[in-house]
């Protein structure tokens, strides 16, 4: 909640400033992106914390997690990137079918691991602009474990501020999913339709 007020105040100040001095706008717009990215991750983390501490059944939590993933992550871009070169030859219908199947698959895969997060928390510590995106740095504190670092890569190239990659102690989700989806495709002789069908039960 404090972050929302912060953002509103910041937004108001920006609106005023941009009315007064147009020349300063590009720099401030960039600064706002860092704040937006940070607030996106703050909201994502708050929702994750709410889901894992909700006490709901696992299947209900997995459903909630899929909704969260589609709201805060750029799923079509992540899916296309995970698919790799095959995405170029895929038809529109195949791409949208794959994106849908991928969203469910990834939500179940990571959602199942949420049990480990119960009683833990994630804290956002820093955000900075890197090249064409914003990197938000957070630390996860899990019960009985040493704290570890989680980095979120956020972009607004889809038209909205959304995250497109998560890096846990250097381990990159996009790279990992590219390897996994690539291997799944190889097992099916490159048959994308078969992969889309199978992803629904993975």
């Amino acid at each position, binding site marked *: 909640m404090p972050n929302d007020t912060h953002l509103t105040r910041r937004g108001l100040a920006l609106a005023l400033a941009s009315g007064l001095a147009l020349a300063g706008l590009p720099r401030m717009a960039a600064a706002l992106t860092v704040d937006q990215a940070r607030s996106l991750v703050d909201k994502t983390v708050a929702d994750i914390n709410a889901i894992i501490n909700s006490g709901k059944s696992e299947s209900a939590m997995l459903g909630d997690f899929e909704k969260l993933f589609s709201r805060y992550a750029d799923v079509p871009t992540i899916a296309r*990137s995970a698919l790799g070169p095959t995405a170029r030859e895929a038809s529109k219908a195949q791409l949208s079918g794959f994106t849908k199947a991928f969203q469910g698959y990834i939500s179940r895969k990571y959602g199942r691991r949420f049990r480990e997060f119960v009683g833990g928390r994630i804290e956002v510590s820093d955000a900075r602009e890197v090249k064409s995106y914003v990197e938000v740095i957070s630390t996860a504190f899990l019960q009985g474990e040493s704290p570890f670092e989680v980095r979120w890569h956020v972009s607004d190239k889809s038209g909205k501020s959304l995250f497109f990659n998560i890096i846990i102690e250097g381990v*990159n989700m996009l790279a990992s999913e590219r*390897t996994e989806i690539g291997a799944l495709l190889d097992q099916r002789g490159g048959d994308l339709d078969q992969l889309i069908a199978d992803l629904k039960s993975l």
Partner: protein
Amino acid sequence: MCQMKSSSAARLTRVAAAVLAAGLLGACAGTTAPDGINDPFENTNRSIHAFNRGLDRSVVGPASKGFGAVVPEPAKRVIGNFANMLDLPGDIVNNILQLNIDDAATNALRLGVNLTMGVGGIFDAATALGLPSQSTDFGETLHVWGVGEGPYLEIPFAGPSTVRDAAGTLVDLATNPVTFVVPEREAFAANALKLLSRLRDRDRFAATVESILYDSADSYAQARLIFLQNRRFQLGQTDAATGAGTETDFIDPYEDPYAE
């Protein structure tokens, strides 16, 4: 007397052999593909991976589950604390070789605190006092000295590594200060304790280990990717402490993500 001499001579030979092996590393740097993976021994590595996976499925996994179920939590913690303390002398030597005086001091302080307040290493009093573990190894020392990572290796019984880290492990095993100081029987006990500590880790991180080994489509490729990324993160982190080096992790899915 004579027996002691010959055994320390044998140790010196081992050290010399290991240092020599490390020196040879410079000669085999190899090339890294654009995806950051240098794996010319993939065929051999894959067979070793199949062996390690079988070993985990039939022996290590079940043993760690048994360990996890039978040993009470406080005892597990004591094993972990003790194993960690036994690593500290070696860590300090490596810190000094890396000219990392801060970590050398922290680890020396950890050793002192845990030996005294931690009642001989039973409790990790140092972490409670805000001196968390700063573990390192000779692989990292080689990295600090400018030795390249070298090709990826999967080692029987030990798992993912690189040529540089494998040489580092050999040196660490051969030069571990603990084995020089304590009598043979105690050194054996120390090694047994470390093995138990590894079982404990396998049990603690069971969900992650099993998702990589048994739930992924290509467990070899997945383990290789995750090991290399995490190891590079560790080394970058400890060197610069700035968090730089993460830019190499960056994939821009908005620009042509599948450009090969």
